[in-house]
């Protein structure tokens, strides 16, 4: 495609690291670029948002990925520039066997704070609700907490899982569980729950009807330059944004 | 011999290690309560022969045995390789002293108590009396009586040998297999052990490997020489 033309004649290595949620898109983009131009080498590492920001700030890598906004302190110490190239909705999910498929924000708050502790109270089976949460440092969690739960309390007895995949695995296996995942991850193994009547789907996130969403960010130290700039430009190009969509995120362009 | 029934008998007993034949169609019938000496040059298979009677060769290497081996245990003849005679009972009834002394790495007292411990005998008094009695019998009590708690592996060669004899006597076995039991003993020690064996004659069948013609003369009722896989009676 024409969007790859800018890489012609370029040489060198581009290092990317950080949040795991970004990897699928980055990987696919890197594959296209490296196939078009074998002289280029693009490495994509995980490690988590914090590590990504630290590494890009220290100059170890060229692009750092974060699933959350960099904190003000991080931005000011390192002089980081943020690029938001996709939007990711965060939807509440339950096991497909669960009959409860609609919730209001208030119910959600009560569930996560532990006030409602049995599915019976919501019209489901007479079993205790198993809460699945993510850790505070996770980007998915912070947006869900801010926009989904409206910063309500979350019970400390909630199980905490480490990633979207782990959340999916947990919910898919637990008929009495409830949790939240990135909308792109919702498939047949888990069932989305409509929140205040709005289903967590890509369309609703795109249209803005579904409010619980976050950006996926790439950061560079200072303004993006050289290969890093080319790469980020590519992500923002039509081809790149197609990739974003293909991997289950909402494109920004 | 009506008064002394057969205690050990073999029929067509052959044995080989890997491909090497050691014993060849040995037929044997030994009366109970006798002392039988076995002689023969080094490496001919004497120790192997002994280990056949308590099935100990099975623990190492790739031996192969053919034929029948019967022992008189608890008053009746048992084919130890055919009948489902329990291995542990067999070995408790057939005592063995090895060519190289092998005390266990524990105190002298524990070494002696070991066979009783295996029989679930817990009576401290009994164990002590019995141990002392056996030590006295092998004339070791004077030498080590004051350090029964010392590690048995620290004993001198001859002391270890006598300790092993004492240990093998703790259970009052019906059959004893002795592999050169006096090899590291001086003449006097040797004579004392012989006297002990004399005492046991009549109640215990003793099969004993030895190298000394004079020892054979002194105590053996019968003597076989092992040559080319066969036993030849010499006494």
């Amino acid at each position, binding site marked *: 495609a024409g969007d790859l033309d800018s890489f012609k004649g370029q040489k060198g290595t581009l290092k990317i690291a950080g949040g795991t949620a970004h990897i699928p898109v980055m990987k696919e983009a890197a594959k296209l670029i490296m196939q078009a131009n074998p002289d280029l080498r693009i490495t994509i590492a995980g490690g988590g948002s914090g590590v990504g920001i630290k590494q890009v700030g220290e100059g170890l890598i060229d692009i750092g990925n974060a699933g959350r906004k960099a904190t003000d302190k991080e931005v000011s110490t390192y002089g980081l520039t943020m690029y938001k190239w996709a939007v990711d909705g965060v939807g509440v999910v339950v096991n497909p066997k669960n009959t409860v498929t609609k919730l209001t924000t208030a119910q959600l708050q009560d569930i996560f704070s532990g006030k409602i502790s049995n599915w019976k109270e919501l019209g489901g089976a007479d079993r205790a609700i198993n809460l699945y949460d993510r850790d505070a440092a996770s980007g998915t969690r912070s947006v869900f907490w801010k926009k989904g739960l409206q910063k309500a309390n979350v019970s400390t007895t909630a199980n905490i899982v*480490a990633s979207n995949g782990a959340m999916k695995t947990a919910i898919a296996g637990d008929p009495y569980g409830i949790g939240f995942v990135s909308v792109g991850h919702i498939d047949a193994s888990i069932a989305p729950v409509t929140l205040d009547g709005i289903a967590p789907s890509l369309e609703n996130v795109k249209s803005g009807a579904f409010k619980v969403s976050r950006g996926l960010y790439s950061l560079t130290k200072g303004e993006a330059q050289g290969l890093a700039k080319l790469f980020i430009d590519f992500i923002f190009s039509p081809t790149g944004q197609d990739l974003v969509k293909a991997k289950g995120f909402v494109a920004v362009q | 011999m009506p008064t002394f029934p057969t205690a050990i008998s073999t029929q067509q007993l052959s044995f080989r290690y890997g491909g090497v034949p050691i014993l060849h169609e040995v037929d044997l019938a030994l009366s109970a309560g006798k002392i039988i000496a076995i002689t023969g040059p080094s490496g001919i298979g004497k120790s192997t022969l002994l280990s056949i009677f308590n099935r100990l060769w099975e623990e190492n290497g790739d031996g192969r045995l053919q034929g029948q081996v019967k022992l008189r245990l608890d008053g009746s003849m048992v084919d130890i390789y055919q009948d489902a005679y329990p291995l542990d009972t067999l070995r408790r*009834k057939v005592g063995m002293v*090895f060519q190289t002394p092998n*005390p266990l790495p524990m105190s002298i007292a524990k070494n002696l108590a070991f066979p009783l411990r295996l029989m679930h005998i817990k009576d401290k008094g009994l164990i002590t009396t019995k141990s002392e009695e056996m030590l006295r019998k092998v004339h070791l009590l004077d030498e080590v009586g004051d350090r029964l708690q010392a590690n048995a592996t620290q004993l001198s060669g001859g002391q270890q040998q006598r300790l092993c004899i004492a240990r093998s006597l703790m*259970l009052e076995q019906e059959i004893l297999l002795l592999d050169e039991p006096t090899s590291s003993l001086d003449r006097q020690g040797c004579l004392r052990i012989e006297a002990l064996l004399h005492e046991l004659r009549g109640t215990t069948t003793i099969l004993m490997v030895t190298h000394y013609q004079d020892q054979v003369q002194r105590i053996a009722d019968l003597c076989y020489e092992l040559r080319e896989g066969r036993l030849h009676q010499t006494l």
Partner: protein
Amino acid sequence: MAMGSGLLLIAILCMMAVLGWPLVENGRFFALFSTTWSPHAQAYGILPMILGSLRITVLALLFSLPMSIGTACLAELLAPRPLRRLLLVTIRFMAGVPTVVYGFVAVFLLVPLMREYLIFGSGFSILTASLVLAVLIAPTMIIFFVNGLQSVPRSYCHAVDSLGARPMQKLIYLLLPQAYPSLLIGVILGLGRAMGDTLISLMLAGNSVALPESVAESGRTLTAHIALVIAADFSSMEFTTIFACGLILSLFTVCLIVSIRLLDRFGTRGAQHREMSTESRP
């Protein structure tokens, strides 16, 4: 060489101490030993994690020990020869099974079982994690156990065999006491592995920050805590607690090991062993 790695260890401990220093500076160090972890409320208590780590480790060891001893005995003593070989190969193979795989398989197989039949709740619990952890550390222990049993000299075995010991008697009266040092090392390394494992507890223990009342509840270990917090801002307070966690973890390892060694010293077997083995050599 040993010195070198010693220095390296000390360097790592120092690094953790230095990086964890802001906590002490802020006078928050002792606040660590409170029960609430809530970074938004500036509460950084890691007591639940400490307890979680201890419980999981001890439980895993409890489950793993009989299993390892059993396997080692089978492989060295009780089983017929072909099975022995099979067992030995299996064990070595298990040493290379990636932790992730255990965690993965357990999530799909063990967790539902636990949920439906054993402990109810979500199935993610300290118990679940420690069961899997027990399997994970078993090869470490078994390999050391087997080596220990194998190294008992032939002549001792012959002596015991000829006295008519049954396999179990041989094991308890001769082999285990003789193999004792190897057993101990195996246990300690297994313990270290259990202490230091991240993924199993992260995937299976549930990771809730509440102080668990029983092992059937969800709980978090220090290691899982580190893994979860690592995504946070590098200079934030939360992140600083990671290093405190690392330090505390090492501290606990030391305590556990020292107490095991002390038990060994006071245990009769240990004393008996000391009589004749390594310590008495000049």
